[in-house]
């Protein structure tokens, strides 16, 4: 099967824009691995938050191709250089997504609420001092604050607002981000999750996690339950077991995350 993705030689670049790297490749691999499901899913509105070089959104458009012709694509980035580079990358591949220079989805959150069927995010996940978050240029592509979660947590709140009832979210996380805790947090909002790709490089261990609404999950009616015990224990265990199966996963992470914030 010849699923096309973006060609590296056609991806544009700029000194202030994050180039396609292991995390970008892992995210595209995850989307490819799930391509058949995505084609059956027939998303109407697809979106990438933080499009950087444009490698991921271009690959997504190419792999869904004409079979998902009924879809439109939107991509945002806070870095205006990244928006230009994404535009050049898309033009080189003859695809079109609507680009907006904005912080996460600011300006779209009201009207786009509940309309996004597919959201992909490679967030700034690197743990950094908090004051490095929100800087201009390429730093915005990686500076993630404490545990690399400052921007991730903001994005997740926006994602919960934007995703349609049948919306899927694919997100890159690092072990240091405590992905099992992210999954538990999302479960409280009614989302099931699965690791699509898990990859360890010399520098980092990446997980690409897919989230989708599971209507069998009992969501806290008023969000008053202060800890993660709200979700049925068996289901939480099944999420955790996905991580525990991974040999590099340190049990201390799982244990400490059980106490929540």
């Amino acid at each position, binding site marked *: 099967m010849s699923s096309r993705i973006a060609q590296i030689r056609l991806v544009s670049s700029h000194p202030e824009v994050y180039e396609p790297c292991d995390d970008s490749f892992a995210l595209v691999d995850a989307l490819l691995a799930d391509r058949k499901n995505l084609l059956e899913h*027939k998303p*109407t*509105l697809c979106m990438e938050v933080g499009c950087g070089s444009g490698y991921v959104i271009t690959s997504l458009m190419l792999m869904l191709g004409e079979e998902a*012709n*009924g*879809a*439109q694509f*939107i991509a945002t980035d*806070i870095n*205006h250089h990244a*928006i*230009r580079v994404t*535009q050049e990358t898309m033009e080189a591949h003859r695809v*079109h997504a*609507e*680009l*907006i*220079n*904005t*912080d996460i989805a*600011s*300006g*779209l*959150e*009201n*009207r*786009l609420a509940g*309309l996004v069927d597919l959201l992909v995010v490679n967030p700034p996940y690197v743990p950094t001092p908090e004051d490095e978050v929100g800087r201009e240029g390429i730093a915005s592509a990686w500076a993630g604050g404490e545990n690399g979660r400052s921007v991730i947590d903001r994005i997740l709140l926006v994602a919960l607002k934007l995703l349609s009832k049948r919306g899927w979210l694919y997100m890159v996380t690092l072990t240091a981000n405590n992905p099992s805790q992210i999954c538990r947090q999302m479960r409280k909002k009614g989302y099931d999750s699965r690791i699509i790709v898990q990859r360890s490089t010399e520098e980092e261990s990446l997980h690409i996690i897919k989230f989708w609404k599971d209507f069998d999950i009992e969501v806290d009616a008023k969000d008053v339950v202060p800890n993660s015990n709200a979700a049925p224990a068996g289901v939480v265990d099944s999420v955790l077991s996905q991580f525990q199966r991974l040999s590099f996963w340190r049990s201390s992470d799982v244990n400490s995350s059980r106490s929540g914030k």
Partner: protein
Amino acid sequence: MRMLTHNMLSSNIKGVTNGFPLRIEVEKVVEKQVEINHDFLRNIFPKIDWKAFFDASRVMGYAELPEEAPEPSVLESDLEFLRKFHHALLELHLEEGALVCPETGRKFPVNKGIPNMLLHEDEV
């Protein structure tokens, strides 16, 4: 920027309660043909704010849409309407210009087809 995108954008300035729709200031419009997809049009139709869409199309120089939103059944049968809806929604691009907050008058520039919705520190 397509009119689809315009229909999804609001002013994001702190304290603004009535930020939709953004008024369009046109410097340059370009038309880019794309293949029509009826499924997409039918799926997105109920999500479109028709008045904002109608007004935006007029400002962009396209006057062939009905002022009142048609019944959804029209999308099943009226190919002529689908073609016009498709054209105004996806083929008209605001290439250069601005989007203006209806409450504060703050302009969000649109350059090379890309709206800049970034806020200044005192607007967040």
